[in-house]
């Protein structure tokens, strides 16, 4: 009987020991005092991206002052290629503004269809209402207005249609601006 009890007791003791050896120790090197970084913090990457966009804008202005619209347009297009941190709201605003400026430069060059393409692309990429999106609608209205002026003498019907579309675009801009202004006012109160 003693020979039977000994292995039983040994097995039970070892099984209990095996079950009780789990540990909650943190792995070496893990930091528990690290200051957490909020995801919406202004980061160095965001500042670099903003600085690049700023510089491209100034470069485009210099080219415009120098009578080189093509180089100015290229410089503004470069803004669209700047890499912003994922999800940064400033990225949407800067890109929308660059599209609006690009469209105005193309209008000044007489490339109305290309200008409208930039507007459409900017509106398609918009993820929320903003003053920059409203500005895109404003510029869209200007492009439509310019297209209507071009056809005023040759195609009155199409001209009227374009003018109506221009009014719709301006109205959309006004509506967005109104909503945003109201929202900002509510925030301040």
């Amino acid at each position, binding site marked *: 009987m003693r020979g039977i009890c000994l292995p039983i007791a040994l097995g039970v003791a070892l*099984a209990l020991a095996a079950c009780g050896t789990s540990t909650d120790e943190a792995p070496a090197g893990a930091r528990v005092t690290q200051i957490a970084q909020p995801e919406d913090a202004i980061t*160095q990457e965001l500042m670099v991206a903003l600085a690049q966009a*700023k510089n491209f804008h100034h470069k485009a202005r210099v080219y415009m002052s120098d009578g080189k619209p093509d180089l100015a347009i290229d410089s503004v297009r470069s803004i669209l290629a700047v890499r912003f941190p994922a999800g940064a709201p400033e990225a*949407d605003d800067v890109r929308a503004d660059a599209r609006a*400026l690009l469209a105005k430069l193309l209008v000044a060059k007489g490339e109305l269809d290309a200008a409208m393409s930039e507007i459409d692309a900017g509106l398609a990429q918009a993820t*929320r209402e*903003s003053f920059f999106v409203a500005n895109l609608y404003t510029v869209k209205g200007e492009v439509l207005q310019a297209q209507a002026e071009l056809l005023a003498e040759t195609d009155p019907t199409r001209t009227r249609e374009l003018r109506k579309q221009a009014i719709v675009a301006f109205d959309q801009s006004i509506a967005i601006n109104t909503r945003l202004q109201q929202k*900002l006012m509510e925030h301040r109160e």
Partner: protein
Amino acid sequence: MNPDDPIYDDDDDVLEPDAASDAAERARARSFAELVDKMMAGRTPAAVPSEAQPLLEVATAIRATVQPAALAASRQRAIIEAALATAIDRRAGNPAGNGPSQPAERLDALAARRRSPRTPWLVATVTSVVAAAAIAMLVMQPGPAPVRPSPAPVAKLPFDQRSRPADALVGAIARERAGDAVGRIDAIYADRLGGFRDRTLYGGAP
């Protein structure tokens, strides 16, 4: 059994009760006695003459009355084992368990198995295997799973140190200022730079 035994001699005459026995009568008595002995020993001949059968029945009845029947010890154990096995099977929901009609050989085997000295060794062996498995688990147990430090609570940043839409900063864009993107990007950059410096100078990571 020889049919020519004197006991089966049909030509015998019945002797007088007080007559002395003769050799033939003694021979018949000896032959019948042997037959009775064989029957008592369980070795009853396959063929018993009809004349002897009534005598054997009388002898069996007389023996039963003077000596109660007793089973051999092995037979008693086998019957008890069979009864226990039947009861266990019924309790286990096996109505088709082996009943008392189980063959004696099987009952004897069952009884022998129960008396087997292997049972303690079987228990000891199983327990030893469990102990060995526990030792193996103890030795081969992988290291503790890395415990991720729970994320520290994230304090909400001041408004001007956060990445956010620039609507509040630039306000509504008038039509005559639609192309003034330079002014707006300058304002955005200056504003965010102030927030970035405040955050980094106060110890936050860049």
